[in-house]
């Protein structure tokens, strides 16, 4: 009868639906049965293992890491390492991968407060114990960047402080003497003013960049947030910070009323600097090797200026190699991490002035501290004792948004500095709750 046919048809349709559902949900959650510490393939059995390695470097900055990986693969012929380069939206990609259990075997990470609370990362403490790996070979402050909540989550990759590059030719043209280490804030503002003219910027001030403004605040004895990551109000709007902010505003006004090199020069103005439109440029050491090799620019480097009575406290860019908790080849991944981070790998990576090695010995061997261009960078490290704000609390990104908004109000809208810092500190404190 008709009703029988109808119900038979609907059964067919339902079966189709269900099979489509099953197909869609195919690679759902892997059962947490792969939570084994020390997988079954111990003992160096010669089966081929492929590891995925994820980094945010690309192009020229990827090459040093690729070189180290090639050396690793030569040493371990049964391990193949596939490099995944993610220059944009790295955090998002990593978090999605961790959430869907498709994370790479080894990846670079720096924002540990973000990843750790979810329990997606592998605690490296037991691995270090097992191999009696000597953590003393590293600079102590770098190890602080690898820890969160009392545990170790990564081994350091490389580190780079920041310094100021300057264009000697532009200084000569303006008949301004080259800056020297230990120069003051006032001297800096003056220099910026002298080197700014139509079509040329003395310095690029970036009101969006809260991260790289930190060292200025530290050098004047202030900070964004308390060391334990719980207090912003009272810290952000301190007297010293008001003075620092006034200084930054003066730099901004002296160099460019409105920063235009921000969005459309990649890497914050590197092309503009290389083509001689910016006289002084703040950055890490990564582009230095290439700039010197290209040889088109007569440049020098100098440490950041300091306020009267302040101490130079530089900021460190560093990151770590980490493993996901649910990785499938943790033994091999651990070997890769040890190699890349240890003396062998980091020596290859930091060749050609690319960065400093986290291993004290390798740094000495490279002799960068005496290199005329790298001296300034090495000096910036000397008194660095502060962790970046991101490492102190997992709620930093929201607080940072509010602080950035406050900074922009000061730079763009000439808001009263003390009042703005007070309001900003208060709002940011709310977010920490």
């Amino acid at each position, binding site marked *: 009868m*008709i009703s029988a046919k109808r119900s038979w048809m609907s059964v067919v*349709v339902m079966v189709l639906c269900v099979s489509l559902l099953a197909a869609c949900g195919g690679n759902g959650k892997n059962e947490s049965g792969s939570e084994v510490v020390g997988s079954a393939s111990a003992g160096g059995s010669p089966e081929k293992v492929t590891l995925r390695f994820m980094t945010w470097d690309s192009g020229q900055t990827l090459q040093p890491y690729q070189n180290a990986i090639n050396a690793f693969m030569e040493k371990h012929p049964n391990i193949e390492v596939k490099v995944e380069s993610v220059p944009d939206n790295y955090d998002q990609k990593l978090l999605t991968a961790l959430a869907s259990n498709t994370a790479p075997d080894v990846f670079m990470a720096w924002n540990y407060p*973000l*990843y750790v609370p*979810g329990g997606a990362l592998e605690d490296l403490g037991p691995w270090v114990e097992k191999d009696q790996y000597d953590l003393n070979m590293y600079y102590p402050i770098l190890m602080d960047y690898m820890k969160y909540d009392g545990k170790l989550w990564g081994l350091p990759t490389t580190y780079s402080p920041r310094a100021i590059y300057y264009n000697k030719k532009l200084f000569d043209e303006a008949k301004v003497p080259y800056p020297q280490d230990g120069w003051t804030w006032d001297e800096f503002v003056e220099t910026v003013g002298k080197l700014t003219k139509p079509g040329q910027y003395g310095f690029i001030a970036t009101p969006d960049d809260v991260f790289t403004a930190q060292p200025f605040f530290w050098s004047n004895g202030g900070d964004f947030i308390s060391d334990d990551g719980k207090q912003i109000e009272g810290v952000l709007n301190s007297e010293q910070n008001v003075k620092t902010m006034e200084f930054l505003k003066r730099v901004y006004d002296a160099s460019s009323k409105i920063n*235009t090199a921000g969005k459309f020069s990649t890497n914050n103005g590197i092309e503009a600097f290389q083509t001689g439109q910016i006289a002084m440029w703040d950055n890490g050491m990564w582009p230095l090797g290439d700039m010197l090799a290209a040889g088109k620019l007569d440049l020098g480097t100098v440490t950041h200026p300091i306020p009267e009575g302040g101490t130079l406290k530089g900021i460190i860019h560093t990151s770590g190699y980490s493993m996901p908790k649910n990785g499938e080849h943790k033994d091999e991944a651990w070997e890769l991490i040890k190699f890349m981070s240890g003396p062998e790998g980091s020596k290859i990576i930091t060749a050609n002035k690319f960065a400093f090695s986290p291993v004290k010995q390798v740094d000495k061997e490279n002799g960068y501290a005496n290199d005329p261009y790298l001296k300034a960078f090495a000096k910036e490290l000397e008194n660095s004792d502060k962790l970046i704000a991101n490492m102190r609390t997992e709620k930093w990104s929201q607080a940072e948004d509010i602080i950035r908004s406050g900074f*922009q109000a000061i730079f763009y809208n000439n808001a009263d500095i003390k009042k703005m810092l007070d309001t900003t500190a208060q709002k940011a404190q709310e977010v920490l709750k």
Partner: protein
Amino acid sequence: MSRTNAGEAALLRSARRKRWKENLAGWFFVSPWMFGFVFLMLGPMLFSLVISFTEWNMVGAPKFLGFDNYIRMFTSDPFYYRALTVTFKYVFLTVPLQVILAILIAVLLNRATVGIRFFRAVFYMPSLIQGVTLALIWGWMFNADFGPINFFLEQAGLPRVHWLTDPDVALYALVIVALWGVGSPMVLYLSALRTISSEYYEAADIDGAGRIRKFFSVTLPLLTPTVLFNIITSLIASFQTIVLAFVMTGGGPAESTYFYSLHVYRSAFTHFKMGYASAMAWVMFVMIVLLTGLILKSSKYWVHYEADGGGR
């Protein structure tokens, strides 16, 4: 008697069977879209509705929060009202401007005697560039130091404008970019204009109407169905603007282009608050539905469909 009844019954049965077959065929034709809709749209929408009542950073389990996300949105999010204001400002500038510009160009094109096909293509082509490409190109056009727009301004002796880095100007720069895509609705208006019977114009001529009068009393009223469509579609699209702001200004300077969708994106993918972002997305959805409903309701007062002889 029974024979005719049996015959009728048989006819009825085969008619029903035929209808049933046609129905089934219809469903099968639609089924690919249905599956897509259910699994790629309806399913995720329901999922995000559920998540909007939780706090979830993707790694780990969601934590139930009740209405906290919704309350927080309206009371303690320092950026929420900013995002709303920017988005509303943008929408209420772009939509009317787009409609007016599209109609104007269509009317002009309609009067062209020579090369109408060529000009129609020329006006339509810009709207083919979309998304990130559009944003990148205009980003460079608006660049204060190297961009062509400032170059020509300076040639004309006018001061440079900091299009994307001056908080007072940035939003308007984005409106200009939105107007770049005016070719799309323009083509619609053009074909609508063609369907206006010349009898109306002749009647207007006889009554002594000038060109302007004819435009406002004949052309415009007969275009209103297309205008309705245009308003609704571009309203929905401009509320959801994200690519332009994301690529060209990142929401700056000083949050002057901090669109609602940008705030949703940032809450989701920079702060990793999926629940809060979902809640905001649903509020936006409700707002758009309400606005669209309002416009549709109002349409019976100003839209003239030819079929019902015009008028209210």
